[in-house]
């Protein structure tokens, strides 16, 4: 059998495995808070995340992706040896998948992007030498370990503090919610629309300037704000009709549940747009090498590959995340709709601001920081700060682990296959 076909088939399987791991690790985190707060039922969460994720991957996913993930190594150095690139990407994909799977098994939220970057660095070091690796990229990753959680905690904590002080702790939370609804909805929609355009649709290269985007987003957000009061009244009225809700949340909390669902949908969409490429990018590179027998700087990602990648991420959530989220939905009362909303909206805002400022951030790292930020504002029932040590450790270990594993795997592949 042709070696290319073997590599291609196995690479496709590994690509899907990586995508499923992304679903189980990243997406389960993003949707888990919504299930935990009962803003969504388990089935709704899985369905919503699969739809949003596939839409994100297909509509806004990278149709053209850099051959070597995130430009970590110079592809021209590999131009003479396309097979080297193919096996390297293969090794990188397996290393990153194994690490993400391991981290998921131990309950550690790690960045899938960092895993794939580390794996590609490992392959780069062993194939073309350390000099070819863009070490600046590694420094930005290291910076993300500190910047992401710190900024996430600050922004989510501030949002929680303000919402709690102005709305939940008011004499009449309902009246306060009605009063602040237009401003709140305006900000939420503004952030989500801006994030949607900047982050979600960035791969479409729409060439819309910053001010044009703001001009476009402001009236849409203002429109949402105009309906804010009516929306709150309608929501609260609806919920108070259904006599005491089983979770015992106040009707005003239910209004935040709606906002949380909105944020969760955005996160799932953004995952589809940005993170599916982590699994599909290397796969597309392998595909391209097999097809053209040459190393291209950029490759076309076929539509079907993005679609299947999106489905695989959703499938990963369904296969590995369902039982987990079900347990959360039943047992954990720590995440209320308000806390979940503040953590997720804080994360979305942080990612938007940091990416505009050019600061390197990871969605997973920011989300962890946001949850802790809400907790530090005494927002969470209890928060186990001891776990942070393990999480931080897993973030730092991501790079060395994937680098070494990719090097070992690449060496083994070249020994047996080349």
């Amino acid at each position, binding site marked *: 059998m042709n070696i290319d076909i073997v590599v291609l088939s196995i690479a496709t399987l590994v690509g899907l495995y990586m995508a499923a791991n992304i679903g189980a690790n990243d997406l389960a985190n993003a949707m888990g808070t919504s299930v935990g707060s009962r803003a969504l039922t388990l089935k709704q969460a899985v369905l919503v995340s699969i739809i949003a994720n596939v839409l994100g991957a297909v509509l806004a996913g990278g149709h053209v992706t850099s051959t070597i993930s995130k430009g970590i190594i110079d592809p021209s150095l590999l131009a003479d040896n396309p097979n080297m690139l193919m096996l390297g990407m293969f090794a990188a994909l397996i290393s990153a998948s194994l690490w993400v799977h391991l981290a*998921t098994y131990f309950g550690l939220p790690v960045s899938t992007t960092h895993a794939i970057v580390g794996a590609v660095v490992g392959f780069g070091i062993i194939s073309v030498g350390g000099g070819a690796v863009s070490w600046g990229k590694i420094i930005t990753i290291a910076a993300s370990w500190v910047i992401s959680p710190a900024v996430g905690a600050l922004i989510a904590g501030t949002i929680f503090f303000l919402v709690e002080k102005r709305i*939940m702790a008011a004499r009449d939370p309902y009246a306060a919610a009605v009063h602040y609804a237009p401003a709140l909805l305006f900000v939420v929609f503004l952030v989500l629309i801006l994030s949607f355009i900047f982050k979600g649709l960035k791969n479409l290269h729409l060439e819309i300037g910053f001010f044009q985007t703001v001009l476009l987003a402001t009236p849409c957000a203002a429109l949402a704000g105009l309906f804010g009061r009516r929306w709150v009244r309608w929501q609260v009225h609806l919920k108070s009709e259904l006599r005491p809700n089983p979770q015992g949340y106040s009707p005003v909390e239910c209004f935040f549940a709606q906002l949380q669902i909105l944020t969760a949908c955005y996160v799932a969409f953004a995952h589809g747009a940005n993170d599916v490429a982590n699994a599909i990018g290397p796969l597309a590179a392998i595909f391209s090498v097999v097809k053209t027998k040459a190393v291209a700087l950029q490759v076309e990602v076929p539509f079907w590959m993005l679609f299947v990648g999106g489905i695989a991420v959703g499938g990963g959530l369904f296969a590995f995340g369902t039982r987990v989220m079900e347990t959360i939905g039943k047992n954990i*009362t720590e995440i209320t709709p308000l806390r979940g909303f503040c953590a997720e909206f804080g994360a979305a805002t942080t990612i938007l601001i940091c990416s505009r400022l050019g600061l390197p951030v990871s969605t997973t790292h920011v989300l962890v920081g946001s949850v802790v930020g809400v907790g530090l504002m*005494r927002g969470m029932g209890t*928060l*186990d700060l*001891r*776990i*942070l040590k*393990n999480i931080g450790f897993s973030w730092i270990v991501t790079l060395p682990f994937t680098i070494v594993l990719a090097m070992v795997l690449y060496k083994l592949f070249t020994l047996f296959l080349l």
Partner: protein
Amino acid sequence: MRLLLNSLFYRSPFENLQKHADKVKECAHLFKEAAVCHIGQECKKFDLLTEQVARLESEADGIKRNIRNHLPRGILMPVDKFQFFEYLREQDKVLDEVEDALFWLSFRPKGIPDEVATDFHHLVEAVIPPIEKLSDLVSLATGYFRSRSEAQRTKMKSLIRDIRQYEREADLLERELKFKIFGTIKDALVVYHLIQLVGIVGDIADHAQNASDRMRAMIAK
């Protein structure tokens, strides 16, 4: 497989605090039944009720240990952990005093002398409401620390005021009863027994009030 962020969350100790408060409430009812039965007569059910109280006290002790042992450093709570433990200690002392009061009742199987029986009955009745209210207070606190609703906080403050009022009434009854004991009972041994017993029963309400004061500190802004 676990949900990754889930590991960051720790089981809220308020669930167990509620269970503890419910045990205390249950004990209070049994104590009342035992004490009323014991007044002025030989009570056949007394030993059985005392045993039940002892069993509940041991269960509540287990819950208390569970709460204390599972709140290590590094767990962040919406309230000051020191205040929380102080609250738990006071709530637990209510139980200890209830058990102690039953022991003191049992030391004199003849019951309470007729001269002070009615007043003692009133005192026992007076210390039950503050204990009952503690359970409601914990239930409200669980909701409050989740929602931070000002309405819930107002309810808690009102409940704490009620407990303080009940304690004041119990204190008054305790003092009057002590006067009466010294005025009417001539047997020094009986006086000693009654003064000790009445003091312990009065302490039940005191600890309930101390607990509620701790809760007030926890919800202070």
